[in-house]
């Protein structure tokens, strides 16, 4: 694991030294010894703050928007999807970016460790298990039971090839099929039952827009929902407006969501937002014969059509 971090540090330092970047976004140590948080470096000297990030590593793509260009970024394959999303939405140019791609065995989701965070002293990946070091000694958990949702359906653990520097230690997580059973569950409920469920969920939403800020697909300069005129969304936090917000947000990312789940992780009240996004993703895949709707394409799915699209309206 460390040699990957060493290689990464060297690559970041050389990026600065060769003047390829004016800023670099990566992960550094977080508040807990095992946690990491995003860091924007502005000089080669900060290069040793770089961490690989075993647990709770957020998606770094969206930070690129406001960084002075040319900007550098460390990307796992999910970050790569986010970066590709921003490039396809023409919010950043590929030539303004210096991408270092690394392989990724999967990222631990500390919420899935059945123990309160402050008792954990360290985390360590050993083979196919996670060793959780606490004051009372280590306990082992199966690796796949503690991963982030997006890692369970990871596109591919290997380092993305569309990068300036590729650091692949061969321990990338193998790709896994997407599991839509969660969506089927909701679909099998009766309409009123579903409506009651969403009513209960949306009642919790405080409209903090954290989901919008975290999402690489929600990259508009100004969100149309903030406009006073036409008032797509009123400021009142009442139920019909909640439905309006969540319908519009999910519809606007339909066919563009890269499935990273950052919206759900960013939501302070824990709304199951991926249950909304993945409904659109699954429908697009089944209706329009798209094999994996998470992977950005040159022309987005709703920006084109096929003469023999399914015909349900007579």
């Amino acid at each position: 694991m460390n040699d990957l971090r060493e290689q990464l540090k060297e690559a970041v330092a050389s990026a600065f030294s060769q003047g390829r970047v004016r800023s670099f976004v990566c992960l550094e140590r977080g508040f807990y010894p095992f946690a990491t948080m995003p860091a924007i470096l502005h000089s080669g000297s900060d290069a040793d703050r770089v961490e690989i990030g075993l647990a709770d590593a957020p998606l770094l793509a969206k930070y690129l928007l406001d960084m002075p260009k040319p900007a550098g970024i460390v990307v796992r394959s999910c970050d790569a999807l986010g970066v590709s999303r921003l490039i396809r939405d023409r919010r950043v140019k590929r030539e303004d970016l210096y991408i270092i791609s690394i392989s990724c065995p999967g990222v631990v989701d500390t919420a899935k460790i059945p123990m309160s965070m402050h008792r954990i002293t360290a985390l360590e990946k050993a083979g196919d298990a996670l060793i959780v070091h606490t004051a009372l000694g280590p306990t082992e958990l199966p690796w796949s039971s503690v991963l982030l949702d997006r890692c369970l359906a990871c596109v591919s653990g290997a380092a993305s090839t569309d990068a300036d520097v590729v650091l692949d230690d061969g321990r990338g997580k193998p790709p896994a099929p997407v599991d839509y059973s969660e969506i089927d569950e909701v679909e099998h409920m009766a309409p009123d039952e579903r409506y009651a469920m969403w009513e209960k969920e949306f009642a919790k939403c405080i409209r903090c827009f954290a989901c919008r800020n975290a999402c690489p697909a929600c990259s508009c300069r100004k969100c149309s929902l903030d406009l006073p005129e036409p008032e797509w969304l009123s400021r009142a936090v009442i139920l019909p407006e909640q439905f309006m917000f969540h319908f519009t947000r999910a519809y606007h990312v339909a066919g563009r969501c890269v499935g990273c789940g950052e919206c759900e992780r960013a939501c302070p009240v824990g709304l199951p937002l991926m249950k909304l996004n993945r409904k659109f993703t699954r429908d697009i895949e089944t209706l329009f014969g798209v094999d994996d709707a998470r992977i950005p394409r040159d022309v987005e799915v709703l920006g084109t059509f096929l003469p023999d699209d399914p015909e349900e309206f007579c």
Partner: protein
Amino acid sequence: MSLDWQPKIVGFTCNWCSYAGADLAGTSRMSYPASVRIIRVPCSGRINPVFVIRAFQRGADGVLVAGCHPGDCHYSTGNMYARRRFLIARRFMEYLGMDPARLEIHWISASEGQKFQEVIKNMTDRIHAMGPNRKMREIL
């Protein structure tokens, strides 16, 4: 709910085909329930699924989206985009719990006055049986 409750249906129709079909139903004096209120847009490609949510929010009991038959669009591709948008939008609204029968999408050409009449009649009967819409709606 009083017996003579009349459902309120907002009808988005495209100017070249379905609006002309509604006109033809008028010129041929075909009577149909007075439940539909028509909004004219240049093309079904102009109809944003968010308008449909806004209609339900403000109290519509049913929404009709009508465009030209695929291939006949005056702007050649407008209804093709509308078809894709509403294929997934309608499924998503059902997913959120909206009764499927409240949103209907039909292709009605300028010479199908009778079809417009039938669509409105069937839609009104179906929604009348379901009663007023309570979901996603501001209760004034």
